[in-house]
């Protein structure tokens, strides 16, 4: 029922309403699914718990008025492939992306550095300081991996998942496909150590490959090395105006095409009638009825909390209960400073780089740092992280008359930590500032205007479906990837619960604003509703289908 103190938030919104489809969660995937369906003529309601849409696409004034920070997503690595951008022509009327040449840097204590640039030759130049052999190897590998990404991994991100056997048979058709299969069989650590000799180069490439939560020693995930180095390491984009701009542009497409966004509306349960979904109930008491409910939330929330274990087949319940969240979360220090960080090292380009890794000196140290985090601790004498000065790329983020810059330093962190995050969060803030200042001497207290941090627990508080601070809604490991994400029954978006669809980051192809689950969810729902699709696969997807699937 309406809140007795404030009344109905939206008086014009009825207590009970009927919809063709309801989407839960207005993160990137919810927005994408709703936008496609709305434009296809489906009467769609997008329901969001927060007062603002976007989920991880959040750009907010968390430090001080006039200083906006990108709270979660900031590195957009699949902009060149996402169908939603071209289907809605977002690049021409809504969005502007910045893809700096200086992409990913790493600064060492002795003043040397490594830099991965958009341009291959510039990257080779940097590696050659440490090993000419590694520079040549990088050039050769990345050109081959670019083909793997362009022809296979990029387009396949937006095509429903296949079984490992089907993938193996399809990939046999081409040399590029066969090379990808060979990659898959290796662990990231094997790929890096087999191809590169220098310890610093190895640490740099492994950090970039695995930083979002890949186990460096796990086999069966090697293709991520090609994908992450090529797309994240060398081709990530910044969304001008902040990541929330991306969400806002999608929201305009939802509403502009007749959809409705219901915000400040937490779904308390998915209504089940006659063994199938019948709608959702929101916390203030309203009921939205629909035979199609699309959830972008994590598996526990969707199936156990909202549908209820009593409504699930035993296999599905068991699968959801066994779902594992990310092997590590993140601790992020957000900071406003008078000057941007100025790294003292042998390469001026580091100061232009989109992201810089600080505090990691070699491969063993990196592995030890990750092992500590997975084990639930942080060694204050041995940790590293990555930093970005966002306002170097986007002056819009600072509106304060005092001027300045906003940056962040992010590091891998366990959800549960000895002593608790209330205490450790403050201690870590000091440790990070000390470490950061070693690499960038101007990051002194005098330079700081304002500083704040977000712990893994804080992530979960802000976005509860990032359970345990899991930004990808679930670990990346072979049994939780591809057609196993979140499980074989649900990876196509449809679920064994009639009328219930899932298409969040816990679905294939995963998180990190790939936009894949939302797109695939919209496709599946449109097919099941018998709605005419107004969109077509991209050219790259068509080529992939012709080459590997037909």
């Amino acid at each position: 029922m309406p809140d007795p103190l404030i009344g109905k938030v939206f008086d014009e919104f009825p207590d009970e309403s009927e919809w063709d489809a309801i989407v839960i969660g207005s993160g990137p995937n919810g927005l994408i699914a709703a936008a496609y369906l709305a434009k296809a003529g489906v009467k769609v309601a997008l329901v969001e718990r927060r007062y603002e849409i976007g989920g991880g696409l959040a750009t907010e004034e968390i430090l001080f008025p006039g200083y906006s920070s990108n709270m979660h997503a900031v590195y957009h690595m699949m902009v060149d492939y996402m169908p939603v951008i071209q289907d809605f022509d977002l690049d021409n009327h809504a969005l502007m992306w910045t893809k700096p040449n200086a992409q990913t840097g790493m600064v060492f204590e002795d003043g040397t550095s490594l830099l991965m640039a958009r341009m291959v030759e510039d990257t080779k130049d940097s590696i050659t300081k440490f090993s000419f052999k590694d520079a040549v190897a990088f050039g050769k590998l990345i050109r081959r991996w670019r083909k793997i990404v362009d022809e296979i991994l990029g387009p396949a991100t937006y095509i429903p998942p296949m079984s490992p056997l089907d993938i193996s048979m399809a990939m046999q058709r081409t040399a590029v496909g066969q090379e990808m299969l060979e990659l898959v069989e290796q662990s990231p650590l094997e790929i890096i150590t087999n191809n590169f000799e220098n310890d610093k180069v190895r640490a740099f490439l492994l950090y970039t490959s695995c930083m979002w939560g890949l186990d460096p020693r796990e086999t069966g995930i090697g293709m991520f090395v090609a994908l992450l180095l090529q797309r994240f390491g060398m081709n990530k984009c910044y969304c001008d105006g902040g990541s929330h701009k991306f969400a806002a542009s999608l929201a305009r497409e939802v509403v502009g095409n007749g959809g409705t966004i219901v915000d400040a509306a937490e779904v308390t349960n998915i209504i089940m009638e006659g063994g199938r979904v019948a709608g959702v109930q929101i916390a203030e008491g309203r009921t939205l009825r629909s035979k199609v409910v699309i959830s972008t939330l994590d598996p526990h929330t969707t199936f156990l909390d909202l549908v209820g274990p009593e409504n699930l087949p035993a296999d599905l319940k068991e699968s959801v209960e066994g779902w594992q969240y990310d092997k590590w979360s993140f601790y992020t220090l957000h900071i406003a400073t008078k000057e941007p960080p100025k790294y003292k090292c042998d390469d001026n380009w580091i100061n232009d780089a989109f992201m810089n890794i600080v505090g990691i000196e070699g491969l063993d140290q990196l592995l030890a740092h990750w092992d500590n985090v997975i084990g639930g601790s942080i060694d204050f004498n041995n940790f590293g992280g990555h930093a970005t000065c966002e306002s170097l790329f986007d002056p819009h983020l600072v509106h304060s008359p005092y001027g300045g810059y906003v940056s962040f330093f992010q590091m891998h962190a366990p959800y549960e930590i000895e002593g608790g995050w209330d205490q450790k969060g403050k201690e870590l803030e000091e440790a990070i500032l000390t470490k950061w200042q070693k690499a960038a001497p101007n990051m002194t207290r005098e330079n700081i205007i304002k500083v704040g941090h977000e712990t893994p627990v804080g992530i979960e508080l802000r976005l509860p479906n990032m359970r345990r601070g899991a930004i990808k809604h679930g670990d990346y490991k072979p049994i939780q990837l591809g057609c196993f994400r979140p499980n074989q029954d649900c990876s196509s978006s449809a679920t064994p619960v009639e009328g219930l669809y899932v298409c969040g980051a816990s679905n294939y192809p995963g998180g990190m604003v790939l936009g894949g689950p939302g797109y695939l969810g919209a496709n599946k729902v449109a097919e099941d509703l018998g709605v005419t699709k107004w969109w077509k696969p991209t050219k790259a997807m068509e080529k992939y289908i012709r080459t590997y699937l037909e």
Partner: protein
Amino acid sequence: MRETATRDEKRVWADKAVVSGIDVKQTFQKLIGSEHLGTSFLRKVDDISVKGGSIWVSHLLTRQPLVPRPKFQAPKCEGPGEYGGPYPCGSREIYYEHVGDVDGRRGKPTVPAERLMWIATQSVRFHETDSQCTIPGLYLESPYYVYVPPPEYQPDGPDAIDKHKEEINAYMRQAFSQVIENVDDDNLVAHLSNSPYESEFRNTGLIGGTWCGTRHCDDQWGENRPSPELARYRTPVDGLYLCNQTACHPGGLALMAIPYNLMHILIEDGLVEPGNWWYPSPWYIPQQGKISAIPR
């Protein structure tokens, strides 16, 4: 119009187009100005790489012709002897070391002089009527090229190696002397050198102080030169076209192809109708939705 007509603060209005023969960076950063361009586009322009190929050019004025050491003397050679380079070329490692020093470290050279790579075009190779030196009794030997980093990327600032010019000249003569036996103070009248930084001052379009202007590499070649959105000579600024080696396929080396290629684009956009004298490239593919540059 008088030749001096546009001096001082004059405005020349173009009804159809402005074609910039200036390098791509200054075209947008200085002539158009950042206030008219998006941050994303400006970043792309800033990022256009001018690495790869900057050279330090030496000219040696000597009392006696320079003579190669016997080991480097070309067979059946008459006169003082010919040499060219590159030297030294005894191992691949020498090349790696030099490239790593220039493109990787980008600072003051650290390669030992005896391993520094260089090439030369001797004056002796020119026809006797093509006099290189008109001072009686003296000889001009040039140019000698050594690969050095462009000023833009030097960690200690663009003029960093120019501050040590005499020291670097001496270092380079030490390198040349591995091959030439009489590059010594007794023989040398003057060593004039031209650093990349000086090349930029002399010709502001030679950004990076290089002949190729912007780097010739996969990411900046062909359909990517200088970046995909600028690769067909058009720009995001209506009426502005690019026509400079830094901005357009096929790049530097005085290939004379850029204005010809641009002509196809100007025809496509309906800005020129050249008439019967025009012939399009046999490899030209008309762009859909545009006027074809192939005469009907």
